[in-house]
Structure formats: C-alpha cells, structure tokens
C-alpha cells in the first residue's frame, strides 16, 4: 500500500473499479480517464448521465461511476436530447466512435448540434470500425488498408474522409467544437483541457460542445501500440488538423 501522502496517481472517482476490455495500447482508456477526471474535478459525478454508443466503447457504461444508458448505433445524440430536454439541470454526454457518429449517426449528430442541444460529445476518431474488426470508416485515410478496403481506400470509388469537427463548426448551435489528439503526453493534457471546457460549456448552458480525439487502434491497424501512436502523429494529424474550430465568444471567457 502506498501512503496517501505519497500517492501521485490513482483511479479517479469518476471511474468504477472495473478493468476495461480495451486492447492493450488502445487510447480509449486514456479518453475515458480524462472524462472521469473532469467529472471528478467539476464535482458533477452524481448529476451526470452518460450515453454509450455501439462500437468498441459499447461497454463504456461499465467504467464510469454515473448513471448510463446504451444507445442504438449512431443514435446517442438523439437519446441525449431526450434526456437533457426532460432533465435540463443534469450533465449529459455521449461517447461515440467514428462509425457511430460520422456514418450511421450523421443525421442525429448534425441536428443535435444544429439545435444547440446542451450536451457534450466526446468523439473518438480512430479511422476504422474497431468492434467489427477493422472495416473502412468515414474517417479512414485515403490509401489506408482495412478489411473492407483491402487494397487501400480508393477515393475514386470509396470517397473521402469526413472532417467532423470542421463540419459541425459551421452550425450556429455549436458553442465549442475542437479536435485534439491522444498520441503523446502533451497532446493528452491539451485534450483534457478541451474536455473540461466542453463540459463547462454545457454546465453554463452555452450550447452544443464536441471534442474530437484522434485515437489509435493498434489491433486493427496491425501495429504495435508505439507505432500506432507514431501513425497518429505522422498520418492522422496532417489529415485531421488539430485546432479550435468553433469557440463561441461566451465559451472563450471560460477559464479552465
């Protein structure tokens, strides 16, 4: 046992003590931890309701120590809308992957953002469908090999990656919309700050907030965890530039 005064790293209160089911090296665990830390720091654990997606993070509800519901594939923003509209003083967030949010759930996310629903969306972009075994996602990079683009994504027949943060930032209902990455400690710290700002945006009723997080999928990418992090830095970041795509004037006042 570590003496309490020597303890520098512990499980945040926003977590249950359930070990995650994620593959070794996957950044879902990092993203989960950042959210759990923010919930603890903002002291909002009891009044937070999470909405889990369909995808690798389908079991997210096992890991956060808050009320949770589990949405049909892509419909998390609609479920979150239903919850938030009847319980406006609760904190409601969705956690969605790229297949869930940018493909099957495109209609739900765009309209939740357009309505300015006071919800927070954490969007994990790892450029493939992780849970079903690594198929091409709307965010798969041109030329990237997946199990359903075995010769590499051919933009002539399979189209181009969708840049969600840029797209949603054009909508007036959006208060805060940024892209961060989880590929190194500095970027992880920046990601946490963005997640905090997104939840603060909601807590103040300043509109829809989303943080897109560039993430790894070592298993389906066929890479070691370290190489997967390098892939994010060298290939994902250039294709999906990090940055603040929409920070409403009222949100810019928030100090975190």
């Amino acid at each position, binding site marked *: 046992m570590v003496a309490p005064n020597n303890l520098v790293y512990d499980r945040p209160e926003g977590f249950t003590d359930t070990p995650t089911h994620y593959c070794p090296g996957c950044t879902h665990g990092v993203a989960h931890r950042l959210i759990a830390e923010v919930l603890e720091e903002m002291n909002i*654990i*009891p*009044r*937070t*309701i999470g*909405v*889990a997606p369909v995808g690798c993070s*389908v079991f997210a*509800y*096992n890991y956060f*120590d*808050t*009320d*949770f*519901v*589990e*949405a*049909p594939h892509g*419909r998390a923003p*609609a*479920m*979150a*809308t*239903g*919850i938030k*509209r*009847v*319980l406006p003083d*609760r904190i409601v967030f969705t956690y969605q992957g790229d297949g869930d949010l940018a493909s099957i759930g495109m*209609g*739900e996310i*765009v*309209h939740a953002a357009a*309505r300015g629903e006071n919800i927070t969306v954490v969007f994990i972009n790892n450029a493939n469908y992780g849970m079903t075994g690594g198929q091409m996602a709307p965010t798969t990079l041109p030329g990237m090999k997946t199990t359903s683009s075995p010769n590499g994504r051919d933009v002539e027949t399979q189209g181009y990656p969708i840049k969600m943060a840029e797209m949603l930032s054009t909508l007036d209902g959006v208060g805060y919309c940024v892209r961060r990455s989880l590929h190194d400690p500095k970027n992880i710290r920046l990601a946490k700050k963005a997640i905090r700002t997104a939840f603060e945006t909601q807590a103040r009723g300043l509109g829809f907030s989303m943080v897109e997080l560039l993430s790894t999928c070592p298993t389906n990418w066929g890479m070691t965890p370290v190489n997967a992090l390098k892939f994010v830095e060298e290939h994902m970041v250039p294709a999906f530039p990090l940055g603040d795509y929409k920070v409403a004037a009222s949100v810019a006042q928030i100090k975190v």
Partner: protein
Amino acid sequence: MPKELWKGNEAIAEAAVRAGLQAYFGYPITPQTEILEYLSRRMPELGRAFVQAESELGAINMVYGAACTGARVMSTSSSPGVSLMMEGLSYIAGTEVPAVLVNVMRGGPGLGNIAPAQSDYNQAVHGGGHGDYPRIVLAPSSVQEAIDLMGLSFDLAEKYRMICMVILDGSIGQMMEPAEMPEMKPITERKFDWNTDGAINRERRILSSIYIDPPAEEVANFRLAKRWQEVQANEVRYKEYFLDDAEFVIVGFGTAGRVALSAVRAARAEGIKVGLLRPITVSPYPYEVIDQLAGRVSAFLVTEMNMGQMFDDVRLAVRGRVPVEFYGRTGGVVPFPDEILAEIHRIAAGQWSVDRDPRDSWQTRMASVIER
C-alpha cells in the same frame, strides 16, 4: 366536462397532455401531423419538452432517452414513419422502459397514400422490431375512445414497463366528433427503482438492451414473457354488441368495427341474429371471448381495412370449429356498411367458403371491384 367538437388528432394530443405527458418528440407525416402541430404550441406553454426531430429515427430515440429518465413520453407518426421507428421500439422493449407510440395508419405498402388503413396490424401486434418482445396495442374506433385510451396507454406502459401503441386509421385522426376531455392531471413526481435520472443520493443505474451473455438474454426474454402473461390475464379489453342471442359474429377493430356496427344494426332490423365483437386491445388479443363464442355461434365474419391480418388471430381462437369468413377493403379504402351487410346476407344464407382460405374466395368476390 362538457362535450366539445374535437378533431381526432388534436384530441389525442390534448388527452396525452392531460394524462401528464412530459415530453413529446415527433416528425411531420400525414395523416397525423396535427398532433405534432398541436403539441408544438401546447407543450411549451406548459413548460414541457417538445422537439420536432430530424427524422422518425431521431424522434423515437429521443423518446427512448426521455423514457429512461422515467418521464411520461410519447411520439406519434403514420405508417412509413412508424416503420422507421422499429429500431428504437425494439431497443425500448429490450431496455424495459415505458413509452407510448401512436400510429395514425395510412394506405401502404411503401409510400402508399394518405387515406385511412389498418394494414399495420401485423407490424404493431405481431412484428415490427427485431427480437422477442411483447407490446400492448390499443385500437380506438372513435374520437372519444381515442381520448379515453390515451390516459390508459400511459398507465399501462408504466405499469408493465412496456411499449404501448395506439393504432387508429387516418379517418379517426382527421374527423371531428363531439367528445369529452378528462380533467387535467397534475404531473406528479413518480419514484421508480429503475430510471436513470442522475445518481443523486443513490447507487448508479445502467439502462441497456444489451445482454452479451446469451443465457442472460434468455433470462431477460423469459422475464418479458412472464410480464406479458400478466398483461394477457388482466388487460384484455373489447366491446360486445348484440352478442347475447347472436348466431353470427362479426369481428372488427377500429373504424372497420364501427362500420360493421352500422351493418349489424341494419341486419338486426331485418331480423338476422348477428352480433359484433370489437377488440379494443388488439394486443393482448381477446382470444378467450372468441374461443367461447366459437362454441355457440355458427359462423364468424372478420372485417378489416387490410388484406386479412387480424383474421389469423380470429382463426387461431376459433380453431376450425365453425367457418370464419373475411371481408376487407385495403389500400386506403374504407368499406361502406352496405358492403358488410351484403356479406352478412351471404353468410346468413349459408354461403361460406369451406374448401380454401376465405381470403382467397374474398379476393374472387372482389374481382368486379378490383378489375375495373
């Protein structure tokens, strides 16, 4: 309360409000749009939630989310829109949360038309979303009955943590009739032991339709089935007309039942001993009363505004003991009482179709109408 002239769709909306509706999510589609329009005004003035969703998919999943909080929540749509909602309906059933869905049915399949129909009976009663799940389905035949059933639908959904659908054809939604509204019910704070409204001073809760371990899903399906047995034992509702001395019985729900009643009255005036059974709950279905009737009447006639969907349920209850005939209109066509009366005359004269599916001989009888 005094009777007022109410349009069916608006009456449904106001009755839901008075039953304590806390949140409504919908999408425009004829012939139910007046419900959405009415509530777009009414809900905000009461400080209650209203969202015009981006699609029926969005609407039913907003219903799903709100239902998880324990709020009284409803969506309404018409046939093609309800088809889109089937995904959400299955999840709502699998999660065991209460929700009310009104289907103001129109002619189909596909885009069909916007005229009254009952052709979503099988979807509502027997099918719809994926997986094993029961659901309660109520079928009003007048504006007044629609009002009365709205309050019941919320109570039943909540009591059994189950979907309660109200199915009516477009004519009930569109027509105006004198009707009496119930008193406004205050929204009471209801405490549940299952809802996810924030883990304030309690253990956290999860609401999900996922049972990744197959034996656990099997247990869940048995739990739903057991609850359904309770519903079947306690919630069957129907209305009888002239059944005491009836030799022949017509079975019809909603508008088809109402049209049949006019035909039954005309036949009675001629001295024909015919009665009417009008199921109000089409799920749970009144099998038992039909089973009993089959022991003492000489024939049934099922009349519907579809190709013969409820017909199968009547046959299931009759179990071949007496002939079960069929007469329907479909595609958005409403039968006239004279058409049903002609069928009553045919059956009273003993001309029934014994050697083939009665729906086939009905199609033959319809040839002169269809092959115009």
